[in-house]
């Protein structure tokens, strides 16, 4: 089965289909790639990201596991110790917490605690964030937990191309990668060129040029920021939008270069603000770009509350108006 070669293709694809294609192409290219998780086999996952993979590669390479996240990730650790390259699916962001001990105490630390003798090339895929009307425990943005754990890479795509390219890069990485999939973008569509979508981990990208200020964002908030930048034109602001793509490693060089060129920055993410990734970004930008800044770096984030019920979530999630309100506070009078 693994002798099937993968022909590059160009076609309109959803992010979900791009992720599926990335898994399929990695499994074809590397027989040590094994998927495991809840409902990933026969069903193809609750979001259908693993659709058809059990049929093509067999139930052993696309394994429906018992329903126990610590057990899933712990089993993946053992598989990786024996030379396999496991890709774990956590069904939802908030369902991944039972695996936290395995993640923090073993996955993140194994290379370090064995002085490099034992690496764990595990990819943990986690659908994350709100905006799809999910009830309690289905909409968490958990990236700050992972980003503050040394030893993990934390990657999150916002486009169809990146979903494909970054997932392949994550699976190929010899380090563990937390791959956060913005679930409200699963059904976003774009043309996917699998031959061209080969993005390495660790590089931010400017999605929109602009000379007034930059919106620094990632994952589910990228389309919101692009929309805000479009709306800002009416106010006379020409906003740049920077997509981080990788929270760890963090692309300080690109972020600092863009901020220095425009002098004003707003960090936008869905996750809660206190102790969040945005706080780290604002601090780093301030430390590195202080003399280039015309205003303090502001944050637009989710409120510091448990994720609200779906009928109220739009009040919590950063939207265009809240982003523009922040932009308006960037001391333009100076």
């Amino acid at each position, binding site marked *: 089965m693994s002798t099937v070669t993968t022909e590059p293709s160009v076609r309109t694809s959803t992010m979900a289909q791009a992720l599926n294609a990335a898994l399929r192409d990695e499994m074809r290219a590397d027989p040590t790639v*094994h998927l495991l998780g809840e409902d990933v086999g026969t069903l193809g996952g609750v979001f259908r990201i693993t659709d058809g993979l059990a049929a093509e590669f*067999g*139930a*052993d390479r696309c394994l429906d*596991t*018992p329903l*126990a996240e*610590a*057990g899933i*990730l*712990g*089993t*993946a*650790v*053992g*598989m*990786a*110790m*024996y*030379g*396999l390259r*496991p890709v774990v699916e956590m069904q939802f962001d908030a369902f991944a917490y*039972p695996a936290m*001990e*395995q993640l923090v*105490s*073993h996955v993140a*630390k*194994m*290379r*370090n*605690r*064995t*002085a*490099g*003798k*034992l*690496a764990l090339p595990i990819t943990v895929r986690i659908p994350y964030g709100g905006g799809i009307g999910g009830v309690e425990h289905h909409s968490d943005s958990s990236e700050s937990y992972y980003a503050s754990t*040394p*030893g993990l*890479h934390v990657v999150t795509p916002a486009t169809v191309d990146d979903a494909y390219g970054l997932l392949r890069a994550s699976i190929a*990485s*010899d*380090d563990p990668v937390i791959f956060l999939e913005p679930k409200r973008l699963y059904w976003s569509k774009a043309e996917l060129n699998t031959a061209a979508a080969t993005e390495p981990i*660790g590089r931010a990208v400017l999605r929109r040029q602009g000379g007034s200020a930059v919106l620094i964002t990632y994952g589910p908030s990228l389309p919101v920021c692009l929309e805000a930048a479009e709306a800002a034109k009416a106010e006379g602001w020409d906003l740049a939008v920077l997509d981080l793509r990788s929270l*760890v*490693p*963090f692309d*300080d*060089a690109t972020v600092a270069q863009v901020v220095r060129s425009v002098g004003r920055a707003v960090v936008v993410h869905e996750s809660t603000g206190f102790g969040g990734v945005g706080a780290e970004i604002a601090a780093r930008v301030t430390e590195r770009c202080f003399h280039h800044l015309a205003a303090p770096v502001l944050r637009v984030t989710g409120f510091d509350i448990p994720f609200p019920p779906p009928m109220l979530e739009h009040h919590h999630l950063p939207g265009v108006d809240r982003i523009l309100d922040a932009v308006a506070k960037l001391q333009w009078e100076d």
Partner: protein
Amino acid sequence: MTVLDHRPTAPVPPWLPGATDPRTDPAPLLPDHTPVRVLGTPELAKHDPELLRDLYRRLVIGRRYNQQATTLTKQGRLAVYPSSTGQEACEVAAATVLRPQDWLFPSYRDTLAVVGRGVDPLAALTLLRGSAHTGYDPVATRTAPLCTPLATQAPHAVGLAHAARLRGEDVIALAMLGDGGTSEGDFHEALNFAAVLNAPVVFLVQNNGYAISVPLTKQSAAPSLAHKAVGYGLPGRLVDGNDVVAVHEVLSEAFDRARNGGGPTLVEALTYRLDAHTNADDATRYRVSAEVEAWREHDPVTLMERHLREAGVLDDALVARAAEQAEALAATMRAEFHAEPQLDPHSLFQHVYAEPTPQLREQADQLAAELAAEAGA
């Protein structure tokens, strides 16, 4: 055919239409009524005298190793030592039953098993000395790092055994745990995954009666810890954990079962920690001396010596030779650990990732500058 196609199915009652879960008769999975023992029974005569003498020799060396390591903590040469004094039979049996291709997943109290498995006796203590997290190559020695978070190594053993089986390779994983660890969720998830995957893995629980200070009666209401296997669909075994021959025999049977496609086994070995939890613990706060003395009468080392002498497979010369080897090892330990370890602060940033991130490079430069300033001051 997948790895999941191993489960026997039994008829479901006709009044439960559509019930498809596999059912197995629990009776064959139930643990032994009384702990298996060999010493003091006619069964001893069936065992190879060479194996018996080797087990004895390992017990004597193991006891001395435990004593010397504990002494080194008192001299400040080891940061901490969770001694397995009193539990050497389990440690020795575990190490002896492993074949070169098998993998060991030890807990922090299993240094002796790690050494018995072939890891350098000094390198095995690196974690407890505090100079590095792991002193040996886990892949080359097929021995996972000593695991501190309780029972978290158990699912690793399952995953490794599963991977080996997928590759068609004859490898068995042995996970070692304590009685306290059986309360952790990872233990239960590991048993369940092992049974569902039919993984060639053996779980050895050393029930030494206490999780630091908490006695087993406050830890579990189960008939035995071995009974926990039954609910997950694997067999439980109960063995006298101070009878090294019995532990070796029960583990060997579990290994044979795993090798022959029979899947995992849970072994509970009843033993006793004669020392405190670690050098930092005071066991007199939670144990009465009468209890400790009763277990000293059932000491695994003297028990083995007495029965082997009675069986005529051990004489004064062999006893003296084992003692000599033990003393030689203790002397090596003293020499090594009385020397200061070589430490490299620059190594802190190595092996966090395959390639350091730009941020780690900056921090490494910062530390290097601090060290250079100190050296120049």
